[in-house]
């Protein structure tokens, strides 16, 4: 039995935003009591959440755990530890492992390892095509039965529109979701940074906006053609946001996400050939950054997901064009997003929706993303006023490829529960469960 007492309980799914206490037992939320007072004698542990936000456990919908196959960059244990430290009780991991998660055995491996060694719920995404080669569909139904929650060839787009069409149509019968990394490879080939003034000055070959825009347009229109569901990952461009907005106005079943770095940084960050600012899609211009922000504010963008992409030093400490793409993000996603609250355009409830309720809804994760009675006891306790500096020594991930070291952050997850188990705690007197 556990009581989280006196915090500001924010549950966008039920519309609740008020002071209250949460009673947890057997891994489930038993009761939510209004008001700050404690219910007299309580037989169990008590977490004092006074002055803190109590949110439904955060869900990172776009994470690369690198396990199986690239365990030196990250594995399920370290990745979920980083997730817990970042405030997440659940992660959704992509299929570009080695072997690719295109077979139910790999899906089962990931689930089982997470169950025994992980400190967060892990929901695997299976590949759309075998080997992620873009040629033959995987066995969607069998993968779903093994535990896959959605399908994606992320890392890569599905290049053949006919294949994406078939996949969307096929998935429609079962209401499966396809997550698409939107990139027109013929246009981005050879590029290493956003095609613009900075890349030009540095002599780095560019990736044009159109590479993402064309692909997003294609994906939206195929979703329209087939009546299938599609989710656009890591949107970085203004036109990309505009297209998503248009799709939603037309009533199409399209959702979209962005990552914190796309509304925090611009391509100015690659100055000095900083490979820790290199990712795909690349950081764009200021106009794009503002448009992404606007998209979050007006509800066009449904989810913030980190696109946590751990890489070892070897692949980052080299010439810019040869460096691997991606940055870690589990431990900085929430604090960077807290900056959205400044100016009041994004409310704490909206933030909770972006990080928890929306991913749960989009992926159909039962019992997640909500603090209602009977839901799984996945809870994230946030101190919105905590001021801290993000340092290498804090990092729980095996990799350190982040451009945010030395940044002063405001706001931090101070405790995380995953099915009633405390997986992370900075609170005095509340140690994490082993």
């Amino acid at each position, binding site marked *: 039995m556990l009581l989280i007492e006196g915090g500001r309980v924010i549950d966008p799914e039920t519309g609740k935003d008020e002071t209250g206490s949460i009673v947890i037992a057997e891994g489930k939320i038993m009761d939510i009591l209004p008001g700050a007072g404690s219910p007299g004698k309580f037989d169990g542990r008590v977490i004092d959440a006074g002055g803190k936000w109590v949110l439904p456990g955060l869900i990172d919908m776009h994470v690369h755990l690198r396990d199986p196959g690239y365990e030196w960059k990250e594995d399920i244990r370290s990745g979920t530890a980083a997730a817990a430290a970042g405030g997440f009780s659940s992660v959704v991991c992509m299929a570009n492992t080695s072997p690719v998660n295109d077979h139910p055995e790999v899906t089962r491996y990931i689930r089982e390892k997470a169950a025994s060694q992980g400190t967060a719920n892990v929901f695997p995404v299976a590949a759309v095509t075998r080997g992620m080669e873009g040629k*033959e*569909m*995987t*066995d*969607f*139904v*069998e993968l779903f039965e093994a535990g896959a929650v959605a399908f994606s060839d992320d890392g890569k787009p599905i290049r*053949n529109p*006919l*294949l994406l069409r*078939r996949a969307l*149509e*096929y*998935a*429609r*019968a*079962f209401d499966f979701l396809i997550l698409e990394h939107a990139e027109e490879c013929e246009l981005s080939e050879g590029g290493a940074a956003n095609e613009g003034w900075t890349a030009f000055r540095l002599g780095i070959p560019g990736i044009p906006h159109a590479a993402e825009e064309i692909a997003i347009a294609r994906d939206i229109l195929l979703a329209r053609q*087939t*009546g299938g569901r599609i989710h656009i990952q890591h949107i970085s461009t203004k036109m990309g946001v505009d297209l998503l907005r248009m799709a939603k106005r037309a009533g199409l079943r399209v959702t979209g996400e962005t990552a914190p770095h796309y509304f925090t940084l611009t391509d100015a960050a690659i100055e000095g050939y900083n490979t820790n600012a290199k990712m795909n899609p690349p950081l764009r211009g200021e106009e794009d950054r503002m448009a992404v922000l606007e998209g979050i504010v007006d509800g066009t963008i449904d989810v913030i997901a980190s696109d946590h992409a751990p890489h070892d030093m070897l692949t980052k400490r080299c010439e810019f064009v040869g460096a691997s793409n991606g940055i870690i993000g589990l431990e900085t996603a929430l604090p960077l997003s807290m900056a959205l609250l400044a100016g009041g355009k994004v409310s704490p409830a909206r933030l909770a929706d972006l990080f928890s309720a929306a991913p749960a809804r989009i992926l159909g994760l039962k019992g997640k993303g909500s603090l209602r009675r009977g839901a799984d006891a996945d809870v994230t306790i946030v101190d919105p006023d905590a001021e801290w500096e993000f340092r290498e020594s804090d990092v729980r991930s095996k990799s350190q490829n982040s451009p945010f070291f030395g940044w002063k952050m405001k706001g931090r997850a101070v405790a995380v529960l995953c099915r009633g188990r405390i997986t992370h705690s900075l609170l005095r007197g509340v140690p994490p469960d082993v």
Partner: protein
Amino acid sequence: MNRMDWRRKHVLGLADFSTEEIEFVVDTARSMEEVLTRDIKKVPALRGKTVVNLFFEASTRTRTSFEIAGKRLSADVVNFSSTSSSVAKGETLLDTARNIDAMKPNIIVMRHPASGAAHFLSRHVSCSVINAGDGSNEHPTQGLLDLFSILKVKGKIKGLKVSIIGDILHSRVVRSNLHSLGRMGADLWLCGPSTLLPREMARGGANVTNDIREAVRDADVVMMLRIQLERQKTAYFPSIREYSRTYGLNSGIFSLAKKDAVIMHPGPINRGVELSDELADSAQSIILNQVETGVAIRMALLYLLAGGHNAAH
């Protein structure tokens, strides 16, 4: 039974067949069936008449069925297959048709990979044309024999729940059956993966579902279609394994149907894929009856087109 004047010169599809015509063909086929029970399975009705089987697509079963049907009626049957011939040398369909027509056959039975080919042929020859399958359009003799097979075992069509499961998109058999069974009042259900079940099908009045259980539940007739790998340029579903797990008929799923439900299949069967071994050989399968009925239906049509003076001439 009302007297009816048979006026059709061609049998190109069931799209414009009236219920009277359908019943007339079935009734004629009943008489033909009796001939097939005799020791001497021959009647002189089409003596001296010529039937040409013009098959541009491989097909042993349909072609053999038409050949036997013709021979039972004492017709001279000639088989023309496209590989070993002028078509391989690049002759157009029009020229091939005209050449054969010049030899004055009474009926040409044609199977062709292009939808509408039979309609085209009928406009350019003077004899009668029977469509044995044109692309993804129609297979009228199959539609009629399926209907007659069901009638024989169930006594009626009206109100029966008939579920057709498989590659609906490419199936000319489905389209013909929609006309025959639909017109006669069956409660039709079409089932398959979304990629093979076009939404337009619901417009014709059939029920459409992706859930095989929903399709089979309380069905009187379950018709399985062959998964046509040779037709697909890009796979419409991931693998045979996934297909048979989700859309294959096995005893477990079939137990949801009515107790006296029957299983049909236009053939050839992919055992273990769309239909389990066990069910294919079970007492509830009327697949072989379909084959038998097919000969009688084809005899009926050959007789109706060539057995008398054609009023339409």
